[in-house]
């Protein structure tokens, strides 16, 4: 129920904004998002963190019963943490935009809140159709935010963002639809319950799973974004307004990784192991390639945008390591990246508000001009670099660790107790590790240009009429929670690890249990599954299938004769 509130409250506030005067829009938005935070805390408090399945804080009501559609929401630890991230970024984005958005305030804040609802909906959906609707619906507010409030090239950016990600997710929809169809063939009734479909998907044979995986990855990889399909991101980030960038980097990209975690791994476990090296190679290329591209950027927002590509590569790597450390690291990465990169975008926005440029060639050496800003900047850069003690390190090193463990170690059983089954390994980890060096190179290059060095300002620079030279109290207030989050996350992440341990271990244990060879995978799974969960899925799946099919034909004939 509290999750429903988290979805509904922003929507109500968006409605209030529409029907209230323009001047009140931002206060309503701030109030609404803060109320959401309160309920988010309630949700966190009410949650039982030691439990695995996605069956807490549920709310279900029939939607289209004929198709087995339910409005079905609930959470496990992973999704609840992502929801928490979403609603934490909510007020930060709203309050951070107080001075940046001057025109069309009602539109801006209303869509921002709607976007928040949609994102919460994605993370708590238990029904595939609900998930997909929310997943796609996030595009619309984001499109409007970019297209209406972006910078000069916003039309191209927003169109590209929309079409690119939309195309990808339509392919994912095909994958979903295939699984749902198979489910209806197996069981004779339509259902879009994610758990039920997961069961069905696992029963598919290896090649079917491979196709399902590829279809899902087509959608999620674009969203993440993975290497060859990343080009929408820098453009969208560069053109988006600050709040849009924060949400985009902080949450929207996580829809992709969350999708991989929630669907690709459990829906196609056999194929995941087959395709892990391929995906990992793409991720590693992304890490290094995007990192090096960052280095030669002059627009710092573009730099940070490319850095997201690089960082999310680690996240994907951890997921495809398919072991506890890797997947946990990946989940933590989703959250931690939201903090540090979101904060970096905010910082850039604050600078942009004052100087109306983001080019390192025009602005540099702000260390003496804006010491507080610079302090925060260095802090968040360090978080992003992956400095131990801050959030980036925890997740990054776990992703690398997971990748490293997940290797060809099994031949030496007993000799390598820390190893797990997997398709990656030390070579992957080593190559990905070079990303750490590259990250240091480009982020310190940026810091060296923009924070350190002799002060340089644009020629036509005037003091902002509202904002002080350095950060205002409001801006510091926006940044402090993020900074505190980075610090706490970096120094005391153990509770988070414990929190996601149960769901992650479930997923991983499942995929790992398939490692007994190529031919027997599905069989092994079926047997294991029966042992685990009783007999709601029969071993003679194929038989029931054919029987039903025969019946179908029979009844058709019958009706035909009736005429």
């Amino acid at each position, binding site marked *: 129920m509290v999750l429903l509130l988290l979805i509904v409250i922003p929507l109500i506030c968006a409605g209030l904004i529409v029907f209230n005067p323009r001047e009140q829009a931002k206060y309503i938005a701030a109030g609404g998002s803060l109320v959401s935070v309160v309920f988010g805390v309630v949700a966190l408090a009410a949650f039982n963190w030691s439990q695995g399945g996605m069956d807490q804080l549920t709310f279900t009501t029939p939607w289209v019963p004929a198709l087995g559609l339910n409005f079905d929401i609930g959470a496990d630890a992973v999704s609840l943490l992502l929801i928490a991230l979403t609603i934490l970024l909510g007020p930060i984005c709203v309050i951070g935009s107080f001075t940046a958005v001057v025109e069309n305030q009602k539109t801006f804040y209303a869509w921002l809140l709607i976007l928040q609802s949609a994102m919460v909906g994605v993370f708590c959906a238990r029904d595939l159709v609900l998930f997909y609707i929310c997943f796609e619906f996030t595009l619309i507010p984001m499109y409007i935010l970019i297209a209406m409030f972006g910078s000069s090239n916003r039309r191209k950016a927003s169109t590209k963002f929309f079409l690119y990600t939309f195309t990808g997710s339509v392919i994912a929809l095909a994958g979903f639809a295939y699984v749902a169809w198979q489910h209806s063939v197996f069981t004779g009734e339509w259902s879009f319950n994610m758990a039920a479909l997961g069961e069905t998907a696992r029963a598919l044979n290896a090649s079917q799973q491979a196709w399902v995986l590829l279809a899902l990855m087509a959608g999620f990889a674009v969203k993440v974004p993975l290497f060859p399909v990343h080009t929408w991101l820098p453009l969208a980030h560069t053109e988006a307004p600050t709040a849009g960038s924060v949400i985009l980097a902080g949450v929207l990209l996580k829809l992709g990784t969350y999708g991989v975690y929630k669907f690709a791994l459990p829906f196609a476990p056999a194929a995941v192991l087959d395709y892990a090296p391929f995906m990992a190679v793409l991720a590693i290329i992304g890490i290094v390639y995007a990192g090096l*591209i960052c280095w030669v950027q002059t627009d710092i927002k573009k730099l940070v945008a490319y850095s997201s590509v690089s960082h999310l590569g680690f996240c994907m790597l951890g997921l495809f390591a398919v072991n506890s450390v890797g997947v946990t690291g990946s989940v933590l990465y989703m959250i931690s990246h939201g903090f540090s990169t979101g904060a970096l975008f905010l910082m850039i926005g604050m600078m942009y508000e004052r100087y109306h440029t983001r080019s390192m060639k025009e602005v540099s050496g702000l260390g*003496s001009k804006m010491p507080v800003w610079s302090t925060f900047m260095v802090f968040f850069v360090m978080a992003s670099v992956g400095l131990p003690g801050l959030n980036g390190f925890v997740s990054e090193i*776990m992703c690398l660790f997971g990748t*490293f463990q997940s290797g060809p170690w099994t031949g*030496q059983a007993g*000799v390598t107790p820390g190893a797990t089954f997997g398709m990656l390994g030390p070579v992957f980890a080593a190559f990905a590790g070079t990303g750490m060096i590259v990250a240091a190179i480009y982020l*310190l290059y940026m810091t060296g240009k923009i924070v*350190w060095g002799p002060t340089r300002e644009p020629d036509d620079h005037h003091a902002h009429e509202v904002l002080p030279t350095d950060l205002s109290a409001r801006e510091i207030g926006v940044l402090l929670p993020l900074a505190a989050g980075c610090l706490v996350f970096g120094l005391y992440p153990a509770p988070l690890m414990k929190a996601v341990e149960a769901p992650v271990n479930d997923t991983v244990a499942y995929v790992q249990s398939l490692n007994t060879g190529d031919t027997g995978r599905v069989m092994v799974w079926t047997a294991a599954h029966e042992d685990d969960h009783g007999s709601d899925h029969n071993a003679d799946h194929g038989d029931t299938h054919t029987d039903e099919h025969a019946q179908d034909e029979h009844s058709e004939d019958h009706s035909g004769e009736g005429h």
Partner: protein
Amino acid sequence: MTSISPTLASMADTALHVGSAPAWVLAIPLLPMLAVVLNTFSAIFRVKTKLPAWITIACLAGSFLATAFAFMTLSGQTNVATGWKWFDLSWGAGQGQQFIADFGFYIDNLTLLWMLFVTGLATLIAVYASEYMEHDVGKGYTRFFVAFGLFVFSMTCLVMGDNMLMLYLGWEGVGLCSYLLIGYFYKKPAAVAAAKKAFIVNRIGDLGLAIGVMLTFVHFGTLEYAQLFQSEQLAGYIAAVLEGRAGDVPLMAQLIAVFLMIGAFGKSAQFPLYVWLPDAMEGPTPVSALIHAATMVTAGVYLIARMLPVFLLSEWALPVVAWVGTFTALLAATIGMAQFDIKRIMAYSTVSQLGYMFAGIAMLSSVGGVYHVVTHAFFKALLFLCCGAVMHGFAGQLDLRKLSGLWHMKGWRVVSVGMLVGCLNLAGVPFTAGFFSKDMIIAEAFVTPGYGYSLLGWTLLFTAGLTAYYTFRVFFRVFTGPVQYEPGDEHHGEDDHSHDHAQDDAHGHDGHSHEDHAHGHDHFHPHPPRFAINFVLATLSVLAVLAAGLYFVSPEKHGWVGDMLEESTAHNLYTADHSAAAMFLIDGDAHAAHDTHADAAHGEHAAHGSILGFNPHEVMYYISAIFGLTGIGLAAYLHGPRGMVSGFLGNRVEAGKCRMDAVAKAFDPIPRWAENKWYVDEFYHFLFVRPLWVVSYIFQTIDKLLVDGLVNLFGYLPRLLGRGAQPGQSGVLHGYALSMAGGVGVILFIVVLVTL
């Protein structure tokens, strides 16, 4: 297992007792952290006094006292104090199925030894910095001390961490502080570049370390020292090595040491990753003294000492370390000889001495290596602080050609004496601490059998001579001779910084220094150090001298340091068995262990190596003294002032001219190349940085044209199709109606045909 030597077995036994340390031990790392927090509040409230310095000094002194107390109560034991859980993840109950790393601290003698000099020196240098940085009070002062405190905290994590991830945290944490402090004068592009370089080069090493840590976890299933060093697996490997079955150790396990070694090379500025350290001298001098001479750069030595059992598994790791260390020592010494910036000379000297430490520990003289760390920490900190005092007094002047005769100047006596003490130590003049520690290393090179180790020994001896030469070159040029000086170029360095802010709030300055800077060169008066700096220099001088005494504490264990290391991982195979163990590494001769382990350790060494037919440990005192004194003599002859030693040796009468000029001219290109650091930086730039930059640009182009271009092409396809279909859209209603009707007709027609 049966044939492991009893000593080894007993070693394994003693290492098993891991107790839990009392909670107050946590004060050692947390007091510096407290200083950081308090100083952050100082920054928030914009404190414009020296309060941050006092806070830092108090906290660091408290930390030192806690360490000292720990030394008194806990030495000889191995204890773990856990703060809180940091990484905590499990996916099974078996070994290696938990990913656990606590924010905890591992306290054994090695840790205590390190922490004693780290916290002690940090406290002293904080006192020094409180005066040295005073021109920045109200501005960078707080920032400086925040980073300073953070550094000490990180260093405690590095040294005391009870698992490898804590080590990694400290490892990168000190890197961050190093970055922040090198870039302290952030308006100077050189400082910014140096800071960046330091961080990035360190990161390369860090990657090696990270891979080493991962390999360790995969192989031993744990990251915690306590479990690692107790693990039967490790004991089994070591046994295999000792029995000459080195091939039984899996390749991957051997690689652990190799990767850890890369990390150590990065942090401790060994070839090829040493290039950042000389540039790091752009930071304030107290920083150079503490971080880039005494403590942080010795982290690599600590790492090898801590992980020595793992290093023993590898056939190549330790020999490579020995060779690289020796080569670095020689290379850095040659560069140091040709520099004119006294701080850079000290920096290269540091690189060189670190090479000694690495060589020492790699030649299985962990005592020698660690002892050298300790003595070097004192005398090199002293040297740097003296250089800093000079720099401070002469407005940033560091060129030895422009300074002369400080000994004779009023107020500079403490500095001069301190410098002399430091130089004597560094040059290895007999009966100084540096003399003893260096001798241990060099002698070990002749004792330990290994691939060309005696060649390394001679190289190290030769390098010792070079060291003496360049050390006293500085001393003779700057502190003796006629009183001459030129003020430094104030527009680089910290004073530049203060100028900028002078207009903003002048009252934040103490008038004295401000006046000096404002007046410029015509009326330049050097200001000699005041109480705080002199006090620290004096204290350090005394300590540097006294450090020699450690050699005579418990001599049966090679001095106090040997005593300390005996109860730690660094001891491992040393005292009793070390040469034997080394022999197994090299020769695989299992029986020798039984023959030798019972013998007295000292007498045994002679059997394995000699120098010119003598026992190296006995004759090394003389040989190295000869090399050292020769170097000093050469320095005196080439750089000494006229009138020194009855006018016999030197002939220098003004600051910038000496006999060396002619010599340098005679050997023309070589000194110039050496002065330009053998063009290694340029080589790296050409070989790595530039290509990477070009590749980045190529990638960017590819991204724009190829990757994005393909996408845009797909985006363009519908438009092309649309162009093709456009004529159909006449916009006339009839057309649409007609095509609709026709379409329905055609579809139905198809239905008719199909259902025929």
